[in-house]
């Protein structure tokens, strides 16, 4: 019988190794799997490559792992925010590497990773410093960059509801990077507010089919009306 539920976030991340590549969902605090991030901070795996859209928007996101010296490389689109100081300091010391990627290219590289597409061309970033050193090619008279897929060893994602097989639904803009990161890791761990019986989620409403989720952790929903992103 399929059982993907782990008793705690700490248990779900316990086998993470130094040097792993980790995808972390969320857009700032919205849809951020903060319990999994906290568990990883406790677990202590180091030398991580972390892929996440925003770094520094909230204190309980990837910023916590940076402050904890667990991260050697960041791939993101928006490394700016009230909690980016430790990132800036480590960049200046040269103890962390930063790769800034346009948000759509970041999403597409992750989608490609999940979809078995090793590389694709995009017009985004051509003629800019983010395109420097990348292979280019013209299509329809327009310059494009060759971009490579991103695949994670682990993905931490957040959803509102799951069933035992790992089917997931989200709430509103909580989706953001979560459904796409779910497809692109060897082990996707979903932090959810509710686990319901098989068959209780309408098959037409499932956003992330069960095949993409390896582990589930149930956590408390954040308090009603508490906006996590404004600290």
């Amino acid at each position: 019988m399929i059982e993907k539920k782990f008793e705690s976030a700490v248990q779900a991340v316990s086998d993470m190794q130094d040097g792993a590549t980790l995808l972390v969902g969320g857009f700032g605090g919205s849809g951020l799997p903060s319990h999994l991030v906290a568990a990883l901070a406790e677990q202590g795996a180091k030398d991580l490559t972390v892929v996440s859209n925003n770094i520094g928007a909230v204190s309980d996101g990837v910023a916590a792992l940076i402050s904890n010296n667990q991260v050697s490389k960041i791939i993101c689109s928006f490394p700016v925010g009230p909690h980016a100081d430790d990132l800036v300091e480590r960049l200046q010391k040269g103890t962390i590497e930063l790769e800034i990627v346009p948000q759509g290219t970041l999403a597409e590289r992750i989608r490609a990773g999940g979809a078995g597409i090793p590389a694709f061309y995009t017009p985004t970033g051509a003629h800019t410093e983010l395109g420097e050193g990348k292979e280019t090619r013209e299509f329809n008279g327009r310059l494009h960059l060759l971009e490579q897929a991103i695949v994670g060893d682990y993905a931490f994602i957040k959803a509102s509801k799951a069933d035992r097989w790992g089917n997931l639904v989200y709430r509103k803009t909580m989706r953001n990077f979560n459904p796409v990161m779910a497809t692109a890791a060897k082990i996707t761990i979903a932090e959810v507010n509710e686990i319901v019986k098989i068959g209780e989620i309408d098959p037409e409403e499932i956003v992330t089919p069960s095949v993409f989720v390896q582990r589930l952790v149930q956590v408390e929903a954040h308090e009603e009306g508490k906006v996590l992103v404004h600290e």
Partner: protein
Amino acid sequence: MSNEQQAMGWTMPELASRVASDLEDGWFVNLGIGLPTLVADYIPEGKEIIFHSENGLLGLGPKPAPGEEDPDLVNAGKEPITLVPGGSYFSQADSFAMIRGGHLDAAILGAFQVSQFGDLASWKLPNATLGRVGGAMDLTVGSKRVFLFMQHTTKKGEAKIVEECSYPLTAKNCVDRIYTNLAVIAVTEDGLVVTELAPNVTFEYVQEHTAAPLKLRLATVRG
């Protein structure tokens, strides 16, 4: 000079209203973080404009009433928002497929600099350690029209409309129209063309605060 200049012409709400009047019924429009979000408040009655937020929704509505904020419902600036009836949610991959695939009728964005060729610089200050690219590069290459919504000069009074951008580029040759407190300027194959002047602003004044050559070709007064 700066504050004096920025006080000239349209106020930002007036400019938002001016931009809103150019959006057509049924358009799908992305509003950049900051000033451009003002535009949503000035859509004329009877027009249906559907706003896109790149973090994954179509049908961005007004700010929620105090106490009604939902942490799972935010815009690209991570501020609490609402969804209008007919709105929808989708993932980042789908949101940027929409953007890059040319499905948005317009993106209304801010700018550090814009060149006479419509090159845009908006994501990074020169020599900054960090840039904040977010969705700016995708929106500028992907949207059918890119409109800038900005003060005509910097707070220090420096020209933002220039011959060549000295700041890091967001995209080349992507801007279609520039809305500032002083004027509406079209980016054409023939260079920058002032198509409208704010009340009590002369063409000469606009040219004086612009570091690229301008032409004057006023559009017929809109009904």
